[in-house]
């Protein structure tokens, strides 16, 4: 029986959805908890099944726990900012500042510097934004923050496109994906291959104290990475894959399943790195072919026919090859011949 003060813990029988299955009861992620910060509280205007809302809620609550509530959050422009703060409402129960699209990392540097100068550096700083605000327009600011090793955790919620402006391509949009600016038309429909940025690896190249990736399929992993990040000082970076039902053309109920498939296919490697060296990775439990991940997403619909059979085997093979490279690079299948 649940008393009012008992946290409700995730545990979904027969699925890996929340990733709690393998940890003991008291360490499991809480779905609801009377002591929870609810940094991003309910009532915001995200689409149903928004991976970004889920990721931000867990990441920030973990950061609030880790800092005993002594946290300031800086947000770049994008879905997360727009759906959470339509004047005169706000969903944030954390001290929160939105300035611009490109400058969240710099503003966070300023917050950290201001706190230090005024003798309040027990208060910690998280900056967050979408992939556009991180990998594209905000990249210079982010790189500068990394290079100076400012005391900021930057969290990118990567939904692989400019969703707030209506699903345009960003430099984290995968090859072949349809967006409003990489339409599924012409001889090579969807986004071009061979372009784009791997921000986690770029962050590692700055040799900052901590870089990690996570998905919203494994909230326990996400929370513990945030906690680890907050236990350290200096520039830290967390890249979270957050499916977007609207932009990806997926069902709201499939957000977590797709995040899990992104990991289990090797398309999105989940790992940690310190000072530029990979220190751990989350192995695939059920290695899955990439087409299982691609098929439910309308942004890849041009690779399949109505029955779900692959019609562009070369494109699917290319995506598979990228996943296989990740599996090798991050040792995601430990027994596989390296």
């Amino acid at each position, binding site marked *: 029986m649940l008393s009012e003060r008992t946290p409700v813990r995730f545990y979904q029988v027969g699925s890996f959805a929340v990733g709690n299955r393998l940890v003991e009861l008291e360490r499991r992620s809480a779905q609801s908890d009377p002591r929870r910060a609810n940094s991003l509280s309910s009532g915001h205007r995200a689409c149903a099944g928004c991976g970004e809302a889920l990721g931000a809620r867990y990441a920030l609550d973990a950061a609030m726990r880790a800092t005993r*509530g*002594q946290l300031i959050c800086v*947000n770049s422009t994008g879905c997360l900012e727009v759906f959470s703060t339509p004047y005169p409402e706000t969903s944030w129960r954390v*001290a929160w500042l939105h300035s611009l699209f490109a400058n969240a990392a*710099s503003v*966070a540097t300023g917050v950290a510097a201001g706190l230090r100068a005024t003798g309040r550096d027990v208060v910690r700083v998280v900056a967050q934004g979408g992939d556009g605000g991180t990998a594209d327009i905000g990249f210079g600011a982010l790189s500068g923050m990394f290079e100076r090793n400012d005391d900021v955790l930057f969290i990118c919620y990567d939904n692989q496109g400019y969703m707030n402006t209506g699903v345009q391509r960003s430099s984290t949009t995968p090859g072949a994906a349809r967006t409003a600016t990489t339409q599924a038309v012409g001889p090579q429909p969807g986004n071009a291959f061979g372009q784009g940025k791997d921000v986690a690896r770029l962050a590692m190249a700055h040799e900052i104290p901590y870089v990690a990736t996570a998905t919203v399929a494994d909230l326990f992993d996400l929370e513990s990475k945030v906690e680890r990040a907050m236990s350290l000082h200096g520039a830290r970076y967390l890249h979270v894959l957050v499916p977007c039902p609207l932009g990806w053309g997926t069902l709201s109920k499939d957000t977590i399943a797709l995040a899990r498939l992104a990991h289990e296919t090797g398309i999105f490697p989940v790992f940690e790195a310190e000072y530029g060296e990979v220190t751990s990775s989350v192995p695939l439990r059920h290695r899955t072919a990439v087409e299982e991940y691609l098929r439910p997403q309308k942004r890849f619909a041009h690779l399949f026919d109505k029955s779900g059979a692959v019609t562009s085997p070369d494109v699917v093979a290319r995506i598979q090859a990228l996943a296989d490279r990740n599996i090798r690079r991050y040792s995601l299948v430990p027994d596989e011949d390296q």
Partner: protein
Amino acid sequence: MQRQIEGSLAIAEAVALCRPQVVCAYPISPQTHIIEALGAMVKEGALDNCEFVNVDSEMAAMSVAIGASAVGARSYTATASQGLLYMIEAVYNAAGLGLPVVMTLANRAIGAPINIWNDHTDAMAVRDAGWIQLFAETNQEAVDLHVLAFALAEELSVPVMVCVDGFILTHSIERVDLPDQDVVDRLVPPFAPRQVLDPNDPVSIGAMVGPEAFTEVRYLAQLRMRRALEVIPELAERNADAWHRPPTGLIHPYRSIDATLIVVAMGSVLGTIKDVVDDLRATGVNIGALGISCFRPFPVNEVREQLRSATRVVVVEKAFSIGNGGVLSTDIAMALRDRRVTVHTVVAGLGGRPIWAASLRALFVNAAEGTLPATVFCDLNEELVERELERMTHDRSSRSLARRDRAE
């Protein structure tokens, strides 16, 4: 204390006296000496509790200042020209968020063609951003205005830009009286922010505002800005009492009380203009001058009052709006729109071209005689322009352009 000192260093000293807590630095001429000097002061421990951040761009400079100011730290940066344009989105943002950042703008032309020398085009590019814009006439005034700027910004929760003519002021060495620390401590009390990011009392700053309230937000910003027209003279009087120098008010009238011809300008060119006024007064011309030291908010009433005897006004401007004309001239004409006053624009000093007293004198004489055109480019090299127009008439692709130019 009287010091023989470079303008930039005097400004850096003045800023340091105001005890900034976060200084963001990015190099661009002619501002760079200011942040270099502040960097050295922080590094050698002469400035307590101050973070000096070497940022990666001007966009980052203003953004770091925004973040620092939002947690209640007194924040300062300096820029010029291209740097100001590079940060322009954050310039508007700081004002919109009501953060009292202080910035020195070492006025410089904007490219292309790239040009590092002085004019006022950069300041004009952010005229409507919601910053208070003060123009210094001398290095002494630059020092005094910086001290005033911190108190003013924090009193109103509005950012303040102190505009100083690049090179002409920033790089000239002259005697400046730097106030004592205890005086400045009295004039600039510790920063008590209006709204602050505090985990123990969390607020959301920077929400999205739609059509239902945006006009009201801007209307209130206008009221707050206009309040500066009362606060600036108060602070200026108080500061002047403390350091026994004339106040840096909203405007500087010079021999204008009964003048029928009044020359209006901003910044260091006023020195030359005053010399010419003296010279012409000696020959019997009824001329005076009016320096605008507070450009935004625009002191309409004070300007009207000081120009009451004028039948003709010549606005000497180091900037103009391409396709229209003078920028300050437009404000002056608006201020006088119910009066029968002829307003001329003299565009001068673009891209660092020297403004000679003799050239101004000739133009003012023309004005007094009623022969000055509505808009004049001071010391325009007519021959060069003619040659280029001639060349263009032979170049098929730009022929129509040349013809139109001549027709006008």
